[in-house]
């Protein structure tokens, strides 16, 4: 277990509001192995992006890490100095942002933006070496070198995402946080980008946290899956375990509403699907309780403890043991 690249332990992140601190991430723990990939799945607003930003210490000014630690290659990301953190950013942990986002600065050429990342962390490198590295990165993500001199708006959505991937690989990081990298891309492009991310991640032995709202996409690229709901991690395990025998009712609902391609269409009218369309859960209890078909009085009293379903698969539900 000690070989993990990143070990997040009981991480809580809160936003200051008028009424006090509002926990967006509540006691989340997980590990990412070197070369392993963890998919964090959850619906919008469940806190998955906040985790990514929290690990990079790039939270909005009204948010802060309340408790917990994140051991990355022996350093606790929650406590290292800001100066050290700047060195870690991109050099050791880089990010791939959502494709629809303006992640590239519109007024600078992409070449300069990539070079900037390299030069910040390897100031001794000659201009020539930097240019050479940029070229080889573009080769890697299959964009013609001639386009290095272009501005971001001259690229299509998929190409821009490749540029961002190239930039993320620029300093040879050991961990990549990919936040909804294919949202808003078309299926074919999405597939290509996912393929590219998966390949680099495996070939370069990079650890990855892959954040997405789309279980199908996460299932495609990740070895481990963590399911999040309302700031809490509710299920965590190997991909097959989570998808094939989901232990948490919320995960079951997510897996159940995953439309698949099969010879017979799903029985839309017949499938029972708990609603998660309503307001927040009552404070203190299990976050899923108001929408959970299995909820009992016990669920109102405090959050459930982790129940291990196998050596690698754990669920946070008071009724986890009761289900087959």
């Amino acid at each position, binding site marked *: 277990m000690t070989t993990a690249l990143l070990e997040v332990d009981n991480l809580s992140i809160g936003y200051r509001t008028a009424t006090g601190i509002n926990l967006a991430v509540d006691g989340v723990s997980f590990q990412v192995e070197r070369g392993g990939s963890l998919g964090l799945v959850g*619906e*919008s607003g469940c806190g998955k992006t906040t985790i990514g930003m929290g690990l990079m210490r790039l939270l909005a000014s009204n948010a802060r890490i309340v408790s917990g630690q994140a051991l990355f290659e022996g350093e606790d990301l929650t406590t290292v100095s800001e100066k050290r953190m700047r060195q870690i950013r991109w050099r050791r942990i880089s990010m791939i942002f959502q494709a629809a986002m303006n992640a590239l600065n519109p007024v600078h050429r992409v070449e300069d933006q990539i070079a900037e990342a390299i030069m910040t962390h390897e100031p001794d490198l000659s201009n020539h070496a930097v240019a050479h590295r940029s070229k080889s990165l573009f080769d890697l993500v299959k964009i013609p070198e001639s386009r290095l001199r272009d501005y971001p708006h001259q690229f299509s959505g998929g190409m821009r995402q490749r540029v961002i991937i190239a930039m993320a690989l620029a300093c040879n990081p050991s961990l990549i946080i990919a936040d909804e990298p294919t949202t808003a891309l*078309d*299926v*074919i492009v*999405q*597939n*290509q980008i*996912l393929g590219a991310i998966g390949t680099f991640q495996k070939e370069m032995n990079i650890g990855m946290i892959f954040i997405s*709202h*789309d*279980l*199908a*996409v996460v*299932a*495609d690229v990740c070895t481990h899956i963590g399911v999040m709901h309302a700031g809490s991690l509710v299920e965590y395990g190997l*991909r*097959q375990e989570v*998808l*094939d025998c989901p232990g948490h009712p919320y995960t079951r*609902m*997510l897996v*159940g*509403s*995953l*439309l*698949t*391609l*099969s*010879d017979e*269409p*799903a029985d*839309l*009218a017949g*499938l029972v*699907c*708990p*609603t*998660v*369309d*309503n307001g927040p859960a009552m404070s203190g209890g299990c976050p899923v309780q108001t929408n959970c078909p299995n909820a009992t009085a016990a669920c109102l009293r405090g959050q459930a403890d982790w129940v291990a379903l196998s050596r690698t698969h754990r669920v946070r539900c008071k009724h986890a043991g009761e289900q087959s």
Partner: protein
Amino acid sequence: MNTRVSSPILSMTDVTKVYRSGDSLLGASGSRVVALDRISLDINAGEIFGLVGESGSGKTTASRLIVGLETPDDGRIRFDGKDIVGLKGRARREFTRQVQVIFQDPYQSLNAHLSIFDAVCEPLVIHGIGDRASRRTRVCEALETAELTPPEVYLNRYPHQLSGGQRQRVAIARAMILEPRFLIADEPTSMLDASISFQIFRLLHRLRETFGVTMLFITHSLAAARNLCDRVGVIYRGRLVELGTARETIMHPRHPYTKALLDAHPRYGGSNHHGFGTLLDVERPRPETDHCLFYPRCRLAVENTCNLQAPKMKNLDAAHRVSCFLF
């Protein structure tokens, strides 16, 4: 279950729409974008027809043409056998009672300044249907149809007080209040979370079963089309490339583009390569002449054929049609 054989309620014949940009008073120097290129398709009464395509493929343009938000540059659109292009006045009002749309973005499909009651009631007001009391009853019924229960709770609320899924249901109630015969759902769930999308699909399915409303379901998701639709058409850069029953077209596709879409569809558990492999790694340059639009990306393309002319729709069997030189 899907054996409804009936005459088409809506038929499009060679419909073409070109967008021009950059008009100015001093000389027009704009570019042309062909959004739809000679699209022909029939939608039968009572079916859910899926139009599948990537963004920018023209699928939304098709829906806008049908409801008259735009006019086609060429071709005919007939509803119930009657031409509906450029309808005016009374005839247009009559038509608008029968065809309604559900838009993609529930956050923008409701006027923030109108209460739910006013929003859902508006079509009744426009068409001068009923008096105040009966309108209220009908609004409540419509909300119930959209599974917003109890409806009274919602009447006086405003859109910002509702979640995305609830707003989309209000939009559905609004569309259903005139009891239309034809409903267009334009990517109704692309902004919603997975579990809520699922519920909306189920609601649409139920509307068809209960009211027999014909539906044009526009989506980029093969899975959604597979599970909800009776027949689907696949559209690529404004041209229809394949058309058939949902099962045949999606599970046993013929056109290289449909195959590429299927290849790209995420499938958990297994590898995502099913081995059609119709997509080229490096695109070919786009030919000058009229050509099959998929030619630059198609591994199976035949030189001197696909790059020189556009393929025509061919019947593979009674229900399945494809536009490709390989067939």
